């Protein structure tokens, strides 16, 4: 281990240390605000440290880790999202009176796991990261344990995630058995376009199952609505952004490295998954009456869109996927922020009915929520549009017509349920509306901070996207070239 090694691992060390510090703090004296403050500081510090690290990238820590610009960008996304989730959680948990402080340990560890995924180049570190993330999430999902649906969601996630991990592990074992390496670079060199034996193919297929579960794509999506619905809103936001972001970073790195585009059958498998995700996700959300479930189903569809970018396999695809993921993270974080800010104790405002006539009572929140819905639907001048535009151009460039057509058609279906929420918010309020305690609660400073930040980002991204695009291109475009050059 050299000084550069430590230096380049700085963000992870910061997060891990923060988790230990929080434990000590709890041992000394429980204080919700102090613990939340330490977590926030850790995320902020880790985020800022990324800028310093750009000086030494790409830096490899053989055999497990690689820190390149691509990893830095995804870590940035993870830390920023975790920062927002921490702020939201502080606000959300305030009204509960059981032990709240451990929540932040779990949050820190989950973020640690997700960032490990982003920098992994070896099956061992991948699995380690995935398990750190998953185990923390089990507890996070079921954290409000006085709440029946919450426990149910936690249990479901626990069992299903364990099952999918088993698939993943078995898949890795098969790949290792047939290729003789667990390092992505080695694998890339070993394969470099050579044909895959059946053992390796089955191994990859099983890995797709494991990764597909984490990304909640069809047919591994069944858990999504129940877990999204049951988990506390900030945790749902965390799953939607950090967990999926980390796993997607891994997916991109792994499959781009082994140059999946040479293997027709794997591409077909992903295409089937992408198409099914886009259709099922959007159709399932159609007549839902629960906002969190709508967003859960829509997340299935959005991951399908992301796969389209990934499958395009040209020089735009990594950019487009990252761009879309960033836009999606901003948007979905905003949407769940509002759900979480409007929620009262033991009762979240997640029914569509709760949002009826919201505009007349909370005009600013409704306007922000509307912007988020528009972005999800991909309406111009929002971040979502830019992302979708890039995905489409990536798809069109590679002439993936089937995927592109399905994307466009299902987006139209998607518009319906996003607009349903918007229409509900702007419809005239009636007198006999069920009074939801959370609706009238005033938004705290931290909530305002998160919402304002996200809204500005969303609109900025949509209106002046060029800066973001250049940033992302600078950071992630290298990924493909690096691995392509490795094969040659």
């Amino acid at each position: 281990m050299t000084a550069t090694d430590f230096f380049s691992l700085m963000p992870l060390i910061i997060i891990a240390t923060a988790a230990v510090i929080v434990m000590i703090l709890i041992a000394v004296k429980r204080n919700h605000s102090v613990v939340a403050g330490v977590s926030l500081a850790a995320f902020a510090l880790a985020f800022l440290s990324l800028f310093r690290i750009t000086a030494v990238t790409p830096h490899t820590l053989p055999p497990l880790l690689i820190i390149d610009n691509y990893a830095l960008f995804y870590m940035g996304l993870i830390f920023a999202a975790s920062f927002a989730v921490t702020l939201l959680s502080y606000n959300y948990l305030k009204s509960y009176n059981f032990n709240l402080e451990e929540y932040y340990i779990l949050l820190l560890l989950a973020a640690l796991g997700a960032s490990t995924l982003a920098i992994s180049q070896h099956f061992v570190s991948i699995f380690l990261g995935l398990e750190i993330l998953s185990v923390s999430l089990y507890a996070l999902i079921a954290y409000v344990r006085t709440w029946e649906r919450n426990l149910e969601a936690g249990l479901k996630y626990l069992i299903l995630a364990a099952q999918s991990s088993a698939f993943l592990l078995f898949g890795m074992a098969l790949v290792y058995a047939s290729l003789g390496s667990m390092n992505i670079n080695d694998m890339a060199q070993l394969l470099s376009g050579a044909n895959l034996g059946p053992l390796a193919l089955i191994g990859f297929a099983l890995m797709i199952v494991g990764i597909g579960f984490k990304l909640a794509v069809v047919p591994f999506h069944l858990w999504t609505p129940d877990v999204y619905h049951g988990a506390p809103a900030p945790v749902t936001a965390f799953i939607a952004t950090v967990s999926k972001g980390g796993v997607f970073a891994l997916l991109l790195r792994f499959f781009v490295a082994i140059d999946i585009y040479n293997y027709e059958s794997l591409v077909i498998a992903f295409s089937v998954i992408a198409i099914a995700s886009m259709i099922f996700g959007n159709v399932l959300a159609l007549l839902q009456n629960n906002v969190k479930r709508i967003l859960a189903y829509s997340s299935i569809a959005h991951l399908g869109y992301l796969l389209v970018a990934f499958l395009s396999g040209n020089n735009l695809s990594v950019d487009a996927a990252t761009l879309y993921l960033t836009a999606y993270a901003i948007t979905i974080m905003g949407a769940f922020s509002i759900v979480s800010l409007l929620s009262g104790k033991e009762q979240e405002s997640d029914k569509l009915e709760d949002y009826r006539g919201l505009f007349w009572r909370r005009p600013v929140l409704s306007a922000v929520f509307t912007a988020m819905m528009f972005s999800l639907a991909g309406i111009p001048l929002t971040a979502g549009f830019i992302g979708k535009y890039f995905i489409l151009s990536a798809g069109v460039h590679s002439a993936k017509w089937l995927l592109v057509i399905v994307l466009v058609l299902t987006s139209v279906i998607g518009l319906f349920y996003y607009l349903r929420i918007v229409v509900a918010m702007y419809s005239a309020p009636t007198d006999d509306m069920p009074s939801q305690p959370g609706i009238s609660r005033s938004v705290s400073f931290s909530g305002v901070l998160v919402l304002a930040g996200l809204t500005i980002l969303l609109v900025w991204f949509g209106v002046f996207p060029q800066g973001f695009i250049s940033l992302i291109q600078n950071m992630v475009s290298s990924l493909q070239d690096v691995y392509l050059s490795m094969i040659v």
Partner: protein
Amino acid sequence: MSNEIQLWPFAVYTLSVFLIVAIMVILSHFLGQRHKEKETGEAYESGIMTTGTARLRISPQFYVIAMFFLIFDLEAVFIITWAIAFKEVGWVGYLGILVFIGILLVVLLYEWRIGALDYAVSGKKIVKKFKQLNKEVI
């Protein structure tokens, strides 16, 4: 696929598995004897009768302590691994294990402080809570 593997033996094998199972079930259905006595439905037809319920309540603290033991026990494995390679890993290894043991200590401290190590709820706490409740009532 270029390196074609022969699939038909696998298919034959699978088929024969199903076939044998089916034959076994069907044959025993027709050939086996059937009777219905008083004890036929019992769990242990030829054993000792069960008494009481299996759902005993054991203090959760029991499991918690057991789990902690398991976890800390397992951590010893890492320390032993380090000890074996003590010379080879040098100062970096020493530093690593120091951090590792440090974290274990913090965890222990944490568990002690949140009362996870108490086998029973301490009397002091009960008295304290009682007083607090009393105050609230008054």
